[in-house]
C-alpha cells in the first residue's frame, strides 16, 4: 500500500503549503477511498486512480462543486492555530491582570508603594525628557535652522556697518548675511508711552529666517525690498505676543499707524507665534545699511547672522573670514558659532544635571519596584508552589507574575505622566528667562517616551523578580511545609541575595543623590550668604528709560534725574534715595571705558576679563592733529553714572574720601569715585584720592575723590572688576568732545538714539506698591509721556540672579528626598521579609535564651552589612558624579569632605531605624509558636 501522506504531499506541492494536520487528514481520507474502492472489487490500479481523483482539481470542477478555490482553505488551519494561540495569551493576559489587581488590593500598601515608585521614576524622567526636548531636541521652525550661524570676533560680538558691508560684499561661504540691531522702541499705546524691545534687521534677514516663505507673517505681509531703502516711510512687524497683549488680537491692526520713537510708523504685519528668534523682541523693522551714520568703523552695534551654504564647512567660513579681516583689522580673529548652540549653551549644564539626576532616580525607582515585587513574590511562594503542583507551567507563572508587575507599572506610569505634567508646570513656573522658554509643553512625544519607558522599565524590573521567584519555588519545602528544613536552612541567609543587592544599589544611588543635593544646598547657602557689597533689604528700585527724542543730551537726563529725585525724597517714608544709570543685577547702561592716568601707574595683577564678552578695544583713532604723539597706556574700567548720595542710599561703604553731593555739578571740578578693586590694582599701597584720570588726550581730567567697596554687579560668583562712578551732572564727555571737534558724527546719532536708562533706588520701609504709585505720580508730573518700565527691589534682583541655582537645587533635593523615602521603604520591606522568613530560627534562638536585643541584632545585622556596603559605594558614585555639578558649585568643592561626612553621619541612624522597626518584631517572636511549627 502506498505511503498516503507522501502521496498527498506530492500532489499538494504545487499549491499553497498545507499544515501537517491537514495532510494527515487528507491522507486518511484518500486511504479510506482507496480501501473502499478495493472493497468494491476494483483493481489496485483503478483504486489508486480513484484515490488520485480525490485530490484532482479537474475532477473537483467536473463534479460541479460550487466553491472554486479549493486550496486556499489550506491556509486556514495554520492561521487559526496562530489566532487561537494569540487569543489564549490575550485571555491569560486579561485574567492575569484581573488577578494582579485582586492581589494588589490584598496588600494595598505594597501595591501603592510599587505604583508610586514607578510613578516617581517615570514622572521625573518624562519631565526631564520634555524639558530636554523643548530645549534641545525640538525642531526649530526656521528653514535653515541647523545652518544658522552668528559671527563674532575676538574683539566684539558686534560689527560696524562698514565691516558688515565688507562681509556682505565678499563670498565667505555664507548665504543671506543679515545684520541685526537690537533697539528699545518707545511706542505710544493709547496715549501711554511704553518701552518695547525689538530689532532692526537688514533685508537678507527675511530670507534667512524664512519670513518670506515658511514663516510668513500671521497677518499682513513681510517687508518689501523697497522698504529697506533709507528715507522710506517707517513700517513695522509686531510679534504675536505684542499683538495679543496690546492689540487684543484685532485683525484690523494691519495698516494702523503707531507713534514709535516720536515718529509715525505703519504696522504691516503680525509675526507668526512660533517666531521666537529674538526672544525678547516684539517689534521688527527694516534696517538700512546705507546712508548717513553707517560709515564709522568703530561704531560696533550690529549682530551678524548668516546661513552656512550647503556643502561648506564652518571651518572654511572661518578661513575666509580670517583672510578678509586680516586686510582690515589684523589684530582680530573672527569666529562662527551655531545660533542654536549659542542659545542653548546656557541651558545645557542645567539640563545635563537634571537628566543625570532623573535617570538615577529612575534606576532607584526601578530597583525599588523590583525589590517590592520580589518581596511580595516571596510571600506568595506557597501559592506558587501549589500552582506548580497542580500542573502550572513555570513559564506560565513567570508570565503571570510579570503581568501583575506590569499592571502596577502601567498604573504607576499613568500617575507618572500626571506627575510629569505637574512637575513641568512647576519647572516652567519656577524657571526664569534664560533657563527655558515657556514652550516646554508636555506633548505626545514626551507621552510616547513615558509610555515606552514604562513598558520597558516595567518589563525589565518585573521579569527578573518573577523569574527568580518562580525558580526559587521548591515544591518539597513549600508543600510539605517542612519547617525544620526551611528554618534551619535559612539560619545563615544569603545576604547577597538579589533583594539585598537591589536595595543596596538603590541605597548607593540614593546616597549619591543626597550628596549632590547637599552640595547644592551648601553652595546656594554660600551664594546667598555672600555679601554683594550693598544692603539689599528694604530697597525699592524704579527703572525709567528716557527716550533720546526728548532727552537728547546728558544734561537733559541730569535735569530730569534732579527733578524726580528731589520730589521722591520728599515722599513720607522714604529714608534715602539714590539714582544710577545701572544698578547691580539689572539691565542698565554700564559702559566699558578706556582710562588713562595723569601719573604713570604700576599695574598689579593680570589683565581683567570684562563681562558679556566685552573685550579691550583697539585704541581710539588718533584725533585730528594728534597723530604721531607717543602711544598712551589705556586701562579698561567699567563706568556708571550716579546721582548725589547714591552710596548712602545703596549702603555701599565709603572706604576713603567722600560721596558725591549736590555740589558736584556740571560747572564744578570733574570728579570720580573708584572701587576698591581699581584702587588696589592701580595704586597698591598708595592713597588714590587726589589722583586724576581721563578718557584720552582731548578729555578733561577728573579727580578721584573717594574709594568705595566693591559691588557684585552680575553674579555673586563673578569676578570683581575695576569700576568708577561719575556724577550724572558731569557725564557726557564723549559727546562734548565730539561736538567740540566739529559736530556730532552721524554714528553717535545711532548710539544716542537708544533711550538712556535711569534707575532710582528708594531706601524705604514702604512696599514696592506704595513707592510705585508715588513714583508714577511724580514722574507723570515731570514728564507725562514717560513710562516707568519696571518696579522691583534690590532683593528680587538678587534672587532672580540665583533662580537657576535655586531651581536646580530644589529639583535635586526633591528627587533625593523621594529617593531616600523609597530607599527606606525598600530597606523596611526587605528586612521585614527577612525577619518573617527567619521566624523559626529566631524562635529557636529565643527558646535557647537569646535576649531581645540579641534577636534584633541578629535580624538587622545582615541588612546593615549590605547597606553599609551600599552606602560606601554611594560615596564613591557621588565622588565620580559630583564634578558634573561643577558649574553650580560656588565655593564648595565637589569632594567637600564636610558634606560627605554629614550626609553619611545622618544616613546611618536613618537607615538603621528603617531596618530596626521590622526587626523589633523579631524580639517578640514567641518561642512556643516557633517551636510548635517545627
Amino acid at each position: 500500500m502506498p505511503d498516503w501522506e507522501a502521496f498527498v504531499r506530492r500532489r499538494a506541492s504545487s499549491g499553497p503549503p498545507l499544515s501537517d494536520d491537514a495532510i494527515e487528514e487528507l491522507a486518511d481520507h484518500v486511504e479510506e477511498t482507496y480501501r473502499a474502492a478495493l472493497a468494491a472489487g476494483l483493481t489496485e490500479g483503478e483504486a489508486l486512480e480513484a484515490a488520485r481523483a480525490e485530490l484532482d482539481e479537474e475532477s473537483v470542477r467536473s463534479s460541479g462543486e460550487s466553491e472554486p478555490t479549493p486550496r486556499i482553505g489550506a491556509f486556514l488551519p495554520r492561521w487559526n492555530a496562530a489566532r487561537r494561540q494569540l487569543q489564549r495569551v490575550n485571555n491569560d493576559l486579561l485574567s492575569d491582570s484581573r488577578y494582579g489587581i485582586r492581589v494588589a488590593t490584598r496588600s494595598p500598601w505594597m501595591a501603592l508603594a510599587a505604583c508610586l515608585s514607578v510613578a516617581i521614576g517615570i514622572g521625573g524622567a518624562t519631565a526631564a525628557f520634555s524639558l530636554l526636548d523643548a530645549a534641545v531636541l525640538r525642531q526649530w521652525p526656521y528653514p535653515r535652522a541647523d545652518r544658522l550661524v552668528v559671527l563674532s570676533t575676538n574683539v566684539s560680538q558686534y560689527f560696524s556697518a562698514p565691516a558688515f558691508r565688507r562681509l556682505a560684499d565678499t563670498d565667505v561661504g555664507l548665504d543671506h548675511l543679515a545684520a541685526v540691531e537690537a533697539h528699545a522702541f518707545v511706542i505710544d499705546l493709547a496715549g501711554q508711552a511704553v518701552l518695547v524691545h525689538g530689532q532692526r534687521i537688514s533685508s537678507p534677514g527675511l530670507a534667512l529666517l524664512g519670513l518670506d516663505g515658511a514663516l510668513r507673517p500671521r497677518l499682513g505681509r513681510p517687508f518689501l525690498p523697497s522698504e529697506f531703502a533709507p528715507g522710506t516711510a517707517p513700517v513695522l512687524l509686531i510679534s504675536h505676543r505684542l499683538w495679543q497683549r496690546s492689540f487684543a488680537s484685532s485683525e484690523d491692526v494691519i495698516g494702523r499707524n503707531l507713534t514709535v520713537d516720536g515718529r509715525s510708523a505703519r504696522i504691516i504685519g503680525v509675526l507668526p507665534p512660533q517666531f521666537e528668534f529674538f526672544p525678547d523682541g516684539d517689534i521688527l523693522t527694516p534696517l538700512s545699511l546705507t546712508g548717513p551714520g553707517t560709515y564709522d568703523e568703530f561704531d560696533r552695534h550690529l549682530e551678524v547672522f548668516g546661513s552656512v551654504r550647503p556643502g561648506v564647512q564652518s571651518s572654511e567660513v572661518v578661513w575666509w573670514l580670517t583672510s578678509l579681516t586680516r586686510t582690515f583689522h589684523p589684530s582680530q580673529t573672527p569666529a562662527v558659532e551655531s545660533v542654536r548652540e549659542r542659545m542653548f549653551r546656557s541651558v545645557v549644564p542645567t539640563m545635563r544635571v537634571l537628566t543625570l539626576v532623573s535617570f538615577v532616580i529612575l534606576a532607584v525607582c526601578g530597583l525599588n519596584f523590583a525589590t517590592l515585587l520580589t518581596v511580595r513574590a516571596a510571600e506568595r511562594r506557597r501559592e506558587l508552589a501549589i500552582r506548580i503542583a497542580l500542573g502550572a507551567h513555570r513559564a506560565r507563572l513567570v508570565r503571570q507574575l510579570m503581568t501583575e508587575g506590569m499592571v502596577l507599572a502601567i498604573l504607576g506610569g499613568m500617575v507618572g505622566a500626571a506627575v510629569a505634567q505637574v512637575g513641568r508646570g512647576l519647572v516652567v513656573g519656577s524657571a526664569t528667562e534664560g533657563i527655558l522658554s515657556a514652550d516646554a509643553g508636555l506633548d505626545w512625544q514626551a507621552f510616547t517616551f513615558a509610555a515606552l519607558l514604562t513598558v520597558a522599565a516595567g518589563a525589565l524590573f518585573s521579569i527578573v523578580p518573577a523569574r527568580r521567584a518562580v525558580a526559587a519555588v521548591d515544591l518539597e519545602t513549600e508543600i510539605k511545609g517542612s519547617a525544620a528544613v526551611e528554618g534551619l536552612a535559612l539560619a545563615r541567609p544569603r545576604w547577597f541575595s538579589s533583594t539585598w543587592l537591589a536595595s543596596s544599589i538603590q541605597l548607593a544611588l540614593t546616597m549619591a543623590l543626597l550628596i549632590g543635593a547637599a552640595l547644592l544646598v551648601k553652595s546656594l547657602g554660600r551664594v546667598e550668604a555672600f555679601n554683594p557689597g550693598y544692603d539689599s533689604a528694604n530697597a525699592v528700585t524704579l527703572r525709567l528709560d528716557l527716550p533720546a527724542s526728548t532727552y537728547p543730551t546728558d544734561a537733559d537726563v541730569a535735569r530730569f534725574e534732579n527733578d524726580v529725585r528731589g520730589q521722591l525724597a520728599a515722599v513720607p517714608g522714604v529714608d534715602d534715595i539714590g539714582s544710577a544709570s545701572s544698578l547691580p543685577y539689572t539691565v542698565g547702561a554700564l559702559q566699558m571705558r578706556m582710562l588713562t592716568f595723569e601719573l604713570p601707574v604700576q599695574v598689579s595683577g593680570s589683565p581683567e576679563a570684562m563681562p558679556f564678552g566685552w573685550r579691550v578695544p583697539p585704541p581710539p583713532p588718533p584725533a585730528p592733529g594728534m597723530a604721531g604723539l607717543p602711544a598712551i597706556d589705556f586701562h579698561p574700567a567699567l563706568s556708571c553714572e550716579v546721582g548725589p548720595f547714591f552710596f548712602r542710599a545703596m549702603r555701599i561703604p565709603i572706604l576713603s574720601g567722600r560721596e558725591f553731593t549736590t555740589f558736584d555739578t556740571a560747572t564744578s571740578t570733574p570728579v570720580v569715585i573708584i572701587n576698591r578693586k581699581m584702587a588696589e590694582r592701580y595704586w597698591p599701597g598708595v592713597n588714590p584720592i587726589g589722583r586724576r584720570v581721563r578718557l584720552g588726550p582731548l578729555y578733561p581730567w577728573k579727580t578721584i575723590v573717594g574709594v568705595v567697596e566693591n559691588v557684585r554687579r552680575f553674579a555673586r560668583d563673578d569676578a570683581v572688576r575695576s569700576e568708577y562712578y561719575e556724577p550724572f551732572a558731569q557725564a557726557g564727555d564723549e559727546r562734548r568732545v565730539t561736538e567740540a571737534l566739529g559736530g556730532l558724527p552721524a554714528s553717535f546719532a545711532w548710539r544716542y538714539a537708544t533711550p538712556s536708562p535711569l534707575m532710582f533706588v528708594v531706601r524705604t520701609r514702604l512696599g514696592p506698591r506704595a513707592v510705585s504709585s508715588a513714583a508714577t505720580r511724580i514722574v507723570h508730573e515731570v514728564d507725562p509721556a514717560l513710562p516707568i518700565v519696571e518696579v522691583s527691589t534690590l532683593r528680587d534682583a538678587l534672587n532672580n540672579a540665583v533662580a537657576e541655582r535655586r531651581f536646580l537645587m530644589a529639583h535635586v533635593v526633591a528627587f533625593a528626598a523621594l529617593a531616600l523615602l523609597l530607599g527606606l521603604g525598600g530597606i523596611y520591606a526587605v528586612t521585614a521579609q527577612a525577619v518573617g522568613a527567619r521566624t523559626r530560627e529566631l524562635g529557636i534562638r529565643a527558646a535557647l535564651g537569646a535576649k531581645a536585643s540579641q534577636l534584633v541584632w541578629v535580624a538587622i545585622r545582615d541588612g546593615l552589612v549590605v547597606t553599609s556596603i551600599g552606602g560606601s559605594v554611594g560615596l564613591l558614585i557621588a565622588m565620580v558624579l559630583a564634578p558634573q555639578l561643577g558649574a553650580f558649585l560656588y565655593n564648595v568643592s565637589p569632594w567637600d569632605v564636610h558634606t560627605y561626612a554629614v550626609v553619611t553621619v545622618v544616613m546611618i541612624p536613618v537607615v538603621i531605624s528603617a531596618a530596626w522597626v521590622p526587626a523589633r518584631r523579631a524580639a517578640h517572636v514567641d518561642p512556643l509558636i516557633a517551636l510548635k511549627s517545627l
Partner: protein
Amino acid sequence: VLSVLEERPRHGYDIAKLIAQRSNGVLTFHAASLYPLLYRMEARGWIQGRWVEKPAQRRRRHYSLTPRGRKELAKRRSGWSVFIAALTRVAGLDHA
C-alpha cells in the same frame, strides 16, 4: 455538510460518504474540495474539529456542529424550503 453533522460528530471521509449515500450519488465531494470547505466552515465557527484517538486506530479529526452552526443550519433550511417550494411552483414540477 451541516445537516450531516447534525446528528453526531463525524470525520471527513464519513461526511463525504454520507453525503454521497444520502443523495444517491448525485452529490459527491472529493477530498480536494471537501476539506477546504470544512476548514472554512470551521473558521466561520459553524463547526469545530477535534482530533480523536482510539486504541488501535489512527487518530482522526471529528467535526461537530457548534451552536452557531446549528443556527446557521436552521436558517439555511428555512431558506431552502422556501426556495424549493418556489422553484417547484414556478417550474410546475408537481404537475409534470
